[in-house]
């Protein structure tokens, strides 16, 4: 059966009208992330209310519920600290830590994965065993165990979180490398005289990376959650340094019934961010998958 016939028969083929519709949700998510990242970067220049130092907020109202027009659009917490400002400073921590963890993870995991997938044999088995070892300890337990021995700084946090991302990224890159290395274009490149390095960097890498990028976005969201979880458990970054996780955690201490905004505001922000990263990753994967299929 020819490609067009196959495409025509495949039940997944979308009707034309659905395709032309603009993906509003995607745009919304993109916009949210753009605003969030921009705000996180420019936080000190935004003239935000006090986020950390409770000594400076002695005169501010405490437990103020959100009210968009006021000086505290998202309300204040028990110490009168501004929620909006805390959310934005929290974003700085969450995003920096999780994105850098994913970058470290992609670099380390990606390199190991490509090496394992291309060289195979013994090297593959050694890397496979290491991957399994890392996977054998559940992510959160691993993080908790590390938290007992590491000081809770942003750098340590990023390193610890990257350990969570590495095994998965190794597996994905390895699988993709294996798949692409079997494609005939690699043999052809070697017939043209390409050496090992060229095959890996020029033939395999561009293909493998493209399939890993969507995965990375999903990992960013997973690590944001992981970081928040640690803070929530009180073993991540500690107050007064605001993070989304410890904001939710501190709102829980019996205040939730009376001042639900203490929990719902950071929870909503967390949800939106995680959702956006997930959606971006998912759409990207679908898009590139389709191209693969059409090949």
């Amino acid at each position, binding site marked *: 059966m020819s490609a067009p016939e196959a495409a025509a028969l495949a039940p997944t083929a979308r009707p034309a009208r659905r395709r032309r519709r603009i993906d509003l949700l995607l745009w919304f998510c993109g916009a949210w992330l753009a605003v969030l990242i921009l705000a996180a970067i420019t936080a000190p220049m935004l003239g935000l209310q006090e986020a950390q130092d409770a000594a400076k907020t002695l005169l501010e109202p405490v437990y103020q519920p959100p009210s968009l027009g006021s000086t505290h659009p998202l309300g204040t917490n028990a110490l009168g600290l501004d929620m909006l400002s805390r959310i934005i400073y929290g974003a700085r921590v969450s995003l920096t830590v999780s994105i850098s963890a994913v970058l470290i993870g992609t670099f380390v995991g990606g390199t190991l994965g490509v090496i394992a997938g291309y060289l195979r044999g013994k090297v593959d088995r050694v890397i496979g065993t290491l991957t399994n070892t890392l996977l054998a300890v559940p992510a959160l337990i691993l993080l908790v165990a590390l938290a007992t021995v590491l000081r809770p700084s942003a750098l340590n946090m990023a390193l610890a979180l990257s350990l969570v991302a590495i095994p998965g990224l190794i597996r994905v890159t390895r699988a993709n490398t294996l798949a692409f290395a079997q*494609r*005939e*274009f690699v*043999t*052809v*490149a*070697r*017939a*043209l*005289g*390409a*050496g090992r390095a*060229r095959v890996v960097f020029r*033939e395999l890498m*561009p*293909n493998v990376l*493209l399939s890993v990028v969507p995965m990375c976005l999903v990992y960013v969201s997973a690590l944001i959650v992981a970081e928040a979880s640690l803070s929530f458990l009180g073993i991540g970054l500690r107050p007064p340094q605001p993070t989304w996780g410890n904001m939710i955690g501190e709102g829980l201490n019996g205040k939730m019934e009376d001042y639900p905004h203490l929990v719902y505001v950071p929870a909503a922000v967390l949800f939106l961010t995680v959702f956006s990263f997930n959606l971006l990753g998912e759409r990207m994967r679908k898009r590139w998958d389709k*191209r*693969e299929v*059409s*090949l």
Partner: protein
Amino acid sequence: MAGTGKTHLREAGSTLLRVEDLQVEFPAKGGRRVHAVSGISFDVAPAETVGFVGESGCGKSTVARAVMHLPAPNSGVVNLDDTELGSLSAKKLRETRVAMQLIFQDPMASLNPRRKVKDLVQEGVEIWHRGGDRRALEERTRELLDDVGLDSATVWNRYPHELSGGQCQRVSIARALMMRPSLLICDEILASLDVSVQSQMLNLLKRTRAEHGLAMMFISHDLGVVKNISDRILVMYLGKVAEVLEVEALDRETVHHPYTQLLLASVPRVTGERIKPSVAGAAQDLPSPLNPPSGCRFRTRCPLATDRCAQQEPQLEEKRPGQFIACHHVS
């Protein structure tokens, strides 16, 4: 190792490629080995096209890769001109190998999906920095693309997935020609194409071969196609050579190796008369290359088989001028 004989090889000086006792095995599960190619010898003269026919699993594609040393064969000697490939250092091998170019069956899979046509065609040149002047390189690329029947202006910046199968195959040919090879190895390159495109490609290959003075190894399961393009034909069965012959001798009337005979009889005739279906016999399985039959490998399906065939492996013998057959019973 007895091999299947070398009597059909021509004088060493007169050939471009000379392959002796080529042997390729793969490890299989359970510690066993697949005997993909078991002692095959052949040669290709300059500007000559040798066709390799046989059914799936006969090892014809493995031969192509082994000749290229992609990967190197388990044993055997591959001589390209005066160079023995097995004796070369890795770097030297890469350099020498460029004189042979491979084209594969699956037109999409053999093109890197993330590269544009122009980059694909220039890839080899880029690896060896042989491009020289950028303008000249671009000129030559366009020329080759036009030569293989593509409109260079339209396809220049296209990606493989924007082209049809036939067009991709043309890009592959242009890419191979770019390296000015002396030998082109075509592995089932027509198998996934429609009849109308097949004939275009066959004519294109014949023209290109003449223009560039190319020798070819042409691997195919289709006897009609092989007959159309080859000068000599190697009939392979289960990792061995059954018969070597000049193309003119390939027809239903001449006496052949029983396997060649079977192949020829199986090719459908284009006729309007109803063929009385021969009462179909029981289905037979091809013997496994994990554990090939002793003696003559074809004996399990051969109508002429005797005890001798099980004990003694037949050697290729020149039964008629230019026709070598490995069979105890055909005279």
